[in-house]
């Protein structure tokens, strides 16, 4: 694909391009609102009675999720490449909103593809995208969710490749997307590492993030995966042996849906096998004939049959552990955080919180956990009300 080659060249050039980096940093600060806070969740910590819990507040980034970090980066690249139009897939609608926002910011035309199923449960975001001037196209084929929206966006891209850049929303797809999206998201971990050293004078013991395609997780983890970071406190008595990044435990939380045994889930590690899909070799929920299976999650952003290729690599290397939270666990965590902290999390992020609800009480009080609170839950309020049988 010549378009991928062109993109790869533009991306690697932009990394060294001082002007590009200056503009990106400027927009991160003045437009996205970075750095996002690292917040100590005192009441949640007390409630669970174990480890100290910090929230990396990506929900406070402009448009309400981490997706904007990547969207703004790629829209800047699209502009540099001379493209007049950007397109994107979206599940929860957050990436669609972020891309539409970036396009408005830079004066580009914008097309968003979204599965019928997701348009229903994220109706608010559909309206937001249209307000931002994007053309939202419904994808009524296949499972009518994120994977089908990606198919349709890829079809559009092959058709309009000369004028259009495809802003893929997660660390998936063909090279250079996984590397590039990770790079734009890695600002999360860079900030979090500095912030926790400021707040606690030491590194955390756990990093926890939900995993759809895997971009907010890679964004948080990446800075802590670098092996050449110097040791930090707490130092041992000799004063030399500090805590190393490699001692930090990292956990990715997939969507367990209605439970693995029901087959209605999006837990690729628990229920999938290696496959090749949408330009990428990774874990995949598929049948014996290699057809991709339908998935289920209460959260549209995690409702996806495959996972970014770096995650299987980190799993096999034993560096990151993967688990899942069910719909019910995520919904309980959604309400818990709302009531205890006054923060309504995105249903995606609620999966990460659900894992901490299980983990924190088992840990000593001097342990530290950072959760990536990848997005805010306004978009989910209607959907949750409906699940609870409440008419708004």
């Amino acid at each position, binding site marked *: 694909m010549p378009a991928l080659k062109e993109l790869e060249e533009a991306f690697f050039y932009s990394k060294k391009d001082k002007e590009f980096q200056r503009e990106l940093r400027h927009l991160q600060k003045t437009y996205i609102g970075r750095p996002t806070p690292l917040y100590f969740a005192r009441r949640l910590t007390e409630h669970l009675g174990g480890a100290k819990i910090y929230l990396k507040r990506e929900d406070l980034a402009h448009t309400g999720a981490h997706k904007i970090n990547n969207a703004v980066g790629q829209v800047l690249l699209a502009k540099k490449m001379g493209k007049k139009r950007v397109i994107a897939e979206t599940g929860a609608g957050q990436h669609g909103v972020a891309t539409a926002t970036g396009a408005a910011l830079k004066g580009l035309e914008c097309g968003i593809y979204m599965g019928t199923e997701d348009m229903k449960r994220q109706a608010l975001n559909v309206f937001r995208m249209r307000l931002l001037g994007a053309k939202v196209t419904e994808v009524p084929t*296949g499972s009518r969710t994120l994977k089908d929206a990606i198919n349709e966006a890829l*079809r559009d891209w092959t058709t309009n490749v000369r004028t259009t850049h495809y802003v893929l929303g997660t660390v998936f797809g063909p090279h250079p997307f996984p590397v590039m999206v990770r790079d734009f998201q890695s600002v999360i971990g860079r900030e979090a590492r500095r912030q926790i050293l400021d707040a606690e004078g030491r590194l955390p013991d756990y990093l926890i993030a939900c995993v759809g395609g895997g971009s907010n997780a890679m964004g948080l983890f990446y800075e802590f995966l670098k092996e050449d970071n110097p040791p930090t406190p707490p130092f041992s008595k000799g004063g030399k042996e500090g805590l190393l990044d490699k001692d930090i435990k990292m956990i990715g939380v997939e969507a367990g849906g209605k439970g693995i045994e029901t087959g209605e889930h999006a837990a690729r590690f628990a229920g999938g096998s290696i*496959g090749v899909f949408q330009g990428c070799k990774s874990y995949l929920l598929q049948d014996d*004939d*290699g*057809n991709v299976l339908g998935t289920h999650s209460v959260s549209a952003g995690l409702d996806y049959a495959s996972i970014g290729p770096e995650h299987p690599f980190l799993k096999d290397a034993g560096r990151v552990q993967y688990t899942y939270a069910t719909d019910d666990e995520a919904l309980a965590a959604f309400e818990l955080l709302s009531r205890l902290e006054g923060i309504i999390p995105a249903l995606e992020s609620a999966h990460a919180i659900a894992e901490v609800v299980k983990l924190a009480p088992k840990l000593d009080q001097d342990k530290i956990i950072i959760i990536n609170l990848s997005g805010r839950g306004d978009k989910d309020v209607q959907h949750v009300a409906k699940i609870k049988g409440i008419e708004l």
Partner: protein
Amino acid sequence: MISRITKTFKRLKKEGKKAFIPYVMAGDPSLERTKEIVILFGECGADIVELGVPFSDPLADGPTIQRASERALKNGVTLRKVISHVKDLRQITRIPIVLMTYYNPVFKYGEENFIKDSKDAGVDGVIIPDLPPDEAEDFIKQSRKAVLDSIFLLAPTSTEDRIKKVTKASSGFIYYVSITGITGANLLLDGSMDVLISKIKKYTDKPIAVGFGVSTPMEASAVAGLSDGVIVGSAIVKRLHESPDELKHYLISLREAIK
């Protein structure tokens, strides 16, 4: 050993003719019906038949073939069943058959087993639109050994470097995708195809067949003038469902146009 597809193109060249390559999705609406269609293709003068394998996520296909794929999947048609269907077809026809399948079903099947079973069943060639030659070294090596043609795609946006790779990796013929886009889109005959096909011919004397977007006999005739063969897919699949009575007449008019 030379493949049946290569032989076909050689014969056509000697006769000063171009290949007519109609497409049908296996199992849409049933494998029984597919058998009838393949026989009809032969009767109407097809030189090679392209047989689609249904897949859950047919990325390179437009709405017509997407729906055909969905119908076939609903009927429980799988790659395995399509291969054994070819074995059945071989009882009644010797027309060269090319499978068009996406890569994941092949990956799941196992490349080696796929190549062996396809060859044993009487498949002549394979098109895998989401397998670029750079990722296909093993596949190419093994299919060459089995004399199963591996057919790769070139598009209007392909660079010289790409053209070099694809012409080298392909056997049987080279599939030139007439448009940037998906199957069933509108063909654009603006002279650029001429330029690109001439460019490809600088690198190879392997036959070049053109597909994606060819619909009317007039288009087929124009494309045949520039290439060695014409592939017609969506337009056939559409007629098969919307006006099956006209299918035979349509196929004959395509055959007559491809000279």
